[in-house]
């Protein structure tokens, strides 16, 4: 289990370096996903399977979905496909693939050796323990987090409003151009 912990930690660091150094956002995202999955494995090794599962579902999962959405909304067409083919050179996907392979080997090796119930130190933190901790002594933090999300949501929905505040009522300045999202493709 020790080896699993350190290997996935190393993969996390390398993948995050890949995120930071990559100039192409899509490639950086690819590394980010690998990084998140390896952090999940670190959580499993530490005996916090619930946190690990959340990491995979929320972070890796949600970011994957967002990523797919962005690709779908951009809908680049033929030129985009050519561009994609140009981007899909081995040096782009080799790094994340090797890192993911390391993670997979670590995972399989851990399962193979029957190490799956153990962790490097402490006790296993189950979902129940996390829940009773959160809604017991940490209740205040949960409520604060709720307010925080509310504030962030209000901020995002206000600033993200389309169109901007147009001076329609006074009418003494030029009305702003409404930037409606264009419909492309079918």
């Amino acid at each position, binding site marked *: 289990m020790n080896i699993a912990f350190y290997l996935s930690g190393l993969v996390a660091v390398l993948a995050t370096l890949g995120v930071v150094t990559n100039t192409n956002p899509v490639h950086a995202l690819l590394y980010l996903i690998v990084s998140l999955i390896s952090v999940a494995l670190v959580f499993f090794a530490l005996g916090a399977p619930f946190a690990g599962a959340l990491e995979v579902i929320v972070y890796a999962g949600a970011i994957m979905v967002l990523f797919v959405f962005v690709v779908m909304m951009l809908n680049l067409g033929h030129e985009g496909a050519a561009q994609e083919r140009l981007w899909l050179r081995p040096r782009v996907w080799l790094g994340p693939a090797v890192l993911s392979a390391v993670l997979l080997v670590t995972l399989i090796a851990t399962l193979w050796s029957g190490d799956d119930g153990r962790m490097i130190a402490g006790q296993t933190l189950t979902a129940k323990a996390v829940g009773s901790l959160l809604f017991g002594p940490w209740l205040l*933090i949960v409520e604060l987090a709720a*307010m*925080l999300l509310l504030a962030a949501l*209000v*901020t995002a929905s206000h600033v993200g409003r389309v169109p901007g*505040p*147009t001076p329609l009522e006074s009418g003494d300045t030029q009305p702003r151009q409404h930037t409606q999202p264009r419909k492309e493709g079918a």
Partner: protein
Amino acid sequence: MTLTATHLLALAPPILVCITAIVVMLAIAWRRHHTSIAIVTVVGLNLALLSLIGVWRMAPLAAPMLAIDGLAIFAAVLILVAALACATLTHAYLAQYSGPREEFYLLLLCATAGGLVLSASTHLATLFFGLELLSIPLYGMLAYVYGERRSLEAGVKYLVLSATATTFLLFGMAVLYAETGHLDVAGLAARLGDELGAWGLAGAALMMMGLAFKLSVVPFHMWTPDVYQGGPGPAATFLATASKVAVFVVLLRLVITAPAFQDGWLHNVLAVLAILTMLVGNLLALTQSNLKRLLGYSSIAHFGYLLTALVIGDGLSVEASAVYLVTYLLATLGAFGVVTLLSSPYVSGTQGGEDTAALHHYRGLFWRRPYLTAVLTITLLSLAGIPFTAGFIGKFYIIALGVESQRWGLVGAVIVGSAIGLFYYLRVMVTLFLAEAGMQRRDAPENWAIQAGGVVVLGAAVLVVVLGIYPAPMIDWMHHIEVLVGG
């Protein structure tokens, strides 16, 4: 330790503010009405302020992760007063804004709750959540009139830089946790002892860096003038008053409860930062031609003076910094309030554009708006620390503290800083009284005195003068704080 009914009662102020935020949200969903939303906000904040009287009787009390003591109640009073003033100013500022106006109050309430939690936090988790709950609504408040490039720029700039500072803070917390295995400040202090190891020092320094950014201490001050200039008046007011008070109080609490934050090396760094902050803040303010930028630099300098109390960190330092915070808060509320009232681009006739805060807009203001000018003059005098204003009492405390502990370098910097400060405050005042030179583009609404915003700035100015002449009640109150903190 789990929450009990007593704890819930003692936590009434932040809970009331949060409930008000939710009521405001539901009211917005039901029907948008600017004035009634503002009234709900003000009523909620006042209820929270009233509940402090009951909380005062219970103090000191240790709720889970929060301390309800004199310092927390003191900070809560300042934050709630600042939030009340901002809410009233917002009503005047956004009166003619054509976009949605009501969300501003919702964000203001969330940020106030964050400030209340932050200033009472005795646990790194509440510290972090309080700080974020204070900062995230501020992004929205600063970028509120996002049709204006300046406002959007201010919001985005604050968002990016503040997020960077938060990562430093979080990393510092992680290092301290790895070193000690504790997240509560008392446990941290016990484990770290008086001498910090390399990791403890790194953690404490990183945390200091994150908090220093929010206080715009000098190496981390670059964002301040742009954000103050670009953000809408009320948001800048909140940033300069409530936000800074909350962060300073939590820093003060860290220094009092964890002597590790007063470790020799860190102590010297803080002293150097304090001197740099005073001098650089004041020097940069000299050449400003925009009143909001000038007040931004002046607030940097004032937190340099306050850091002096933190560096000395013994005897009178809690009392001195509390007195200074009160005087700073009142004067800043008054000055920013007047600027906000005068500079709103959303008064009748004009729509949009920047806030009119350039100094030449204020030329000869006295001959058109004598009362507002009087308020601005008094608050500027107080910021400069002239006798018979509250600012003098604050400066007096800081200098007395420095002299008593024989920190001559710090005292010298305070004096030099104040001398430089006097020059630019007087420059603004001279401008106010210069003879009229052409038309003013925008102006305060004619009936400003009967509007609530006018009452707020007048109240701030009156308090500045009263506390300057008769500071005894304020000082008595500060003694109580010190007793309750036990510092």
